[in-house]
């Protein structure tokens, strides 16, 4: 291709949470009129050709009767979706001189083109724009619907464009960039359900508070309708709000998963997330998956928040096994044909289970042996990772009439914050008791507490791993009380919170 016109524009691909800057080159020359895309893959590229050509035509900008070649580099990087449409159209227009070539030097473009040349939002904008900012890009042209999300990234000018014609006008300097839609401030914890709605359930509330304070995983045992998920949904409100960095991390995951709703306010959501996948979902939906490049699953969307698995006994074992990696390492690696990606998944697990095969409740006639057997199904790797197992009893009509309204989330959250501060002072910023090393825990535990736990191991009430878990919960109980050292009373309470698990994993 000796002669012809060259144009160049920049866009960005996202693989997992990683952004890769993509250079789009356009060559417009003689030959049989057609548009060809190389450096991309599969049907994505073929579809893009039709969209770009039709949109250019709709905008009256199609260079007629020419052969157009578009190349997306680097060619190795997997490129899915329609995010390059706007960049491809602009590269063509730069080649034919509709826009000045140097006007695109520090600009990137991101958006899907509609057949009428309107610009549509795309997923994964937050990591994409973040990557562009890191690569020195100063200006990003983007769909209106993505503007608020993109504006969360500092150090780069976000220019919302409604259609191709507006994009051209902006690039040619004929029209000033429109102001971004004003950010609506998000009320702190707004809309999150409050613990005050929960009447009674002292044991479960206490366990929830300990779980929040120490980052412990939790199993709620109770018959259907007794309020297990009601309790679980109230955990985020008593967890400390996310820091800016954590909130950005979560927003990035949501963005890649396409869960960053269009038009959502530009303020960061600081409330820890809550995810409650149904027990029928596949392993990819829970852990991340999809063809080509994997998307984040519920476990990653619950990053820094709560993953709630209702009806624990209904989940397939193989799906649950997949949770071992994130629970140990805080990340999930998913390999697919085009890439292996890593998504963060450091969640707090809350499980719920019926106490017995019939579901439990007042009419339950199951014998103790049957219940032991049912709960023994929980034995195995997951049981040893759950620290607290309160029983949730159905409220009687009497309880509903006489029970005092529960303490509100704000009061509980204040104690949680205090306990977390004590833990952070001991283990380092951001560290929680649930992840503390057993070695260092023993150093801050009274001998009589250790003797009590050692006795429980000897009697077969605790496994070795359970011993460490009880020690960590005891540490949290002590922190909630403001105690420097873990005493016997803390160890006793921690042991009591696990009694249901003990019986579940070792029926007498």
């Amino acid at each position: 291709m000796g002669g012809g016109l060259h144009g160049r524009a920049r866009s960005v691909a996202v693989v997992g949470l990683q952004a890769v800057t993509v250079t789009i080159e356009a060559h417009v020359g003689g030959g049989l009129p057609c548009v060809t895309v190389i450096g991309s893959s599969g049907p994505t590229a073929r579809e893009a050709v039709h969209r770009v050509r039709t949109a250019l035509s709709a905008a009256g900008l199609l260079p007629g009767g020419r052969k157009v070649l578009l190349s997306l580099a680097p060619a190795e990087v997997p490129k899915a979706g329609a995010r390059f449409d706007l960049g491809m159209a602009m590269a063509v227009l730069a080649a034919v001189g509709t826009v000045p070539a140097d006007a695109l030097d520090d600009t990137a473009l991101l958006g899907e083109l509609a057949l009428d040349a309107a610009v549509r939002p795309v997923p994964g904008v937050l990591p994409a724009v973040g990557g562009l900012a890191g690569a020195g890009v100063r200006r990003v042209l983007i769909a209106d619907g993505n503007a608020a999300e993109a504006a969360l990234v500092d150090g780069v000018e976000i220019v919302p464009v409604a259609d191709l014609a507006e994009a051209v006008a902006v690039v040619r300097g004929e029209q000033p960039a429109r102001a971004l839609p004003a950010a609506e401030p998000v009320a702190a914890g707004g809309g999150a359900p409050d613990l005050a709605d929960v009447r009674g359930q002292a044991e479960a509330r206490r366990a929830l508070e300990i779980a929040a304070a120490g980052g412990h995983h939790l199993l709620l045992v109770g018959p259907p309708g007794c309020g297990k998920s009601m309790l679980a949904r109230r955990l985020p409100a008593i967890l400390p709000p996310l820091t800016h960095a954590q909130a950005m991390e979560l927003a990035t995951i949501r963005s890649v998963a396409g869960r960053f709703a269009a038009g959502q306010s530009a303020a960061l959501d600081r409330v820890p997330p809550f995810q409650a996948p149904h027990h029928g979902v596949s392993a990819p939906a829970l852990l991340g998956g999809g063809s080509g490049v994997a998307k984040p699953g519920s476990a990653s969307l619950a990053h820094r928040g709560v993953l709630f698995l209702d009806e624990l006994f209904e989940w397939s074992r193989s799906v649950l096994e997949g949770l071992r990696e994130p629970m140990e390492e805080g990340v999930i690696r998913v390999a697919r044909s085009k890439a292996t990606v890593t998504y963060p998944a450091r969640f707090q697990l809350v499980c719920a289970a019926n106490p017995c095969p019939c579901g439990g409740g007042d009419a339950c006639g199951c014998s103790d042996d049957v219940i032991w057997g049912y709960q023994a199904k929980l034995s195995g790797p997951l049981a040893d990772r759950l620290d607290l197992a309160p029983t949730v009893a159905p409220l009687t009509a009497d309880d509903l009439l006489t029970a005092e309204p529960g303490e509100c989330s704000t009061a509980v959250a204040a104690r949680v914050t205090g306990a977390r501060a004590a833990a952070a002072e001991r283990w380092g910023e951001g560290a929680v008791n649930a992840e503390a090393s057993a070695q260092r825990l023993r150093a801050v535990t009274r001998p009589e507490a250790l003797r009590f736990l050692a006795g429980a191991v000897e009697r077969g009430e605790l496994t070795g791993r359970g011993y460490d878990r009880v020690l960590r919960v005891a540490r949290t109980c002590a922190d909630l009380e403001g105690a420097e050292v873990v005493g016997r009373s803390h160890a006793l309470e921690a042991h009591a919170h696990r009694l249901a698990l003990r019986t579940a994993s070792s029926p007498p």
Partner: protein
Amino acid sequence: MSPPEWAAALSSGADPALVAWVVRLAAADWAHPDRIRRVVAARLDAGQPTDAGAVLEDLEGCGAGPLPPPAAAGRLAAGLVRLGARVSVVGQPGYPHRLAAAWPELGAPLWLFVRSATGRLPSGTAAVAVVGTRQPTLEGLETARALARILAARGVVVVSGMARGIDQAAHAGALDADGPTVGVLGTGLDVDYPHRDGPLRDAVAAAGGLVTEYRLGTPPRAPNFLWRNRIIAGLADATVVVEGRARSGALQTARLAAAQGREVLAVPGSLHQPASRAPLDLIRDGARPLTHLDEILEVLDGLPVMPGEPDDAPVADHGLAPVADHGLAPVAADVLRLLGAVPATPDRLAAASGHPIGAVLGAVADLTVRGLAAATPRGFVAVPSNGRSGQPPCL
């Protein structure tokens, strides 16, 4: 001599002259129930009439001590007026008719001090005494409360002794159902016993009434509570013993009620459960076992008016006497006392003991480790027999 002005104000229907006489005698230290019983017995033996006036005359003339000056009677009367209390005299209008049936042979009191909204005790469609130990298990408390609720919802007066434990659960159950309930005290109407239970006494006074034969200021003394029990039994058509230990006051009084021909029911419990000893002994001796809560209503349908008998007699004023000393922390001791054969969840243990849930969980773990309690899928139960030898007899 016309009676003082306060006599009419204090009367709930009785002749003011008799009321004035009663108040003056009640102000005397020596006019206690036992002395009155002996006076009545003497008149019965001699075949003489036993109307209130005659008995008062004998009592005054028995030379047990000097009569107090009129000013002392005035002070007592003023105190009663301040409380809004009334005086009823046996044989006079306003005296509870079920109790009157026990006069004179069965020891109904000559006079009563009543504190209620109406000045009289509610008579209801029927009256049932629900009584038991001051050291109940959680299930005992729940049984008493549920029974009282069922009864009160039918307009049946729930009679009990205001003591902590089963008695108070019974009163609370009646209050739950907005039904009538009568608390029979073993102290004066103005004495804070059990300590700090004033709000419950006020609620019972408003929903039915408080009644005692003791003058204002009478402190809690063990024999007074035993005497008090005959009033509880006398006010009720039937008596239900919910829980009580061997040699419990509930056991003695229930047997006395049976001897008088009033129906006695007992709530069967586990034979391992010390708190079920008294009802089980009663069932062995022929008391009717209550096998279902609603059965109490069937029993009432088939019964004429009969007196029954009640609960433990309080001695000291601390509501929770120490249980077996296993070197337990106070919370663990309280929790152990509540545990029975029916599994109890930590939530309920915390609500019943008033301790924070964290401490209760620690306590059940402690008890489990010590072999005094055991975990079941539905909650915690007491481990019976061995190791619980330290249970003190409950009076």
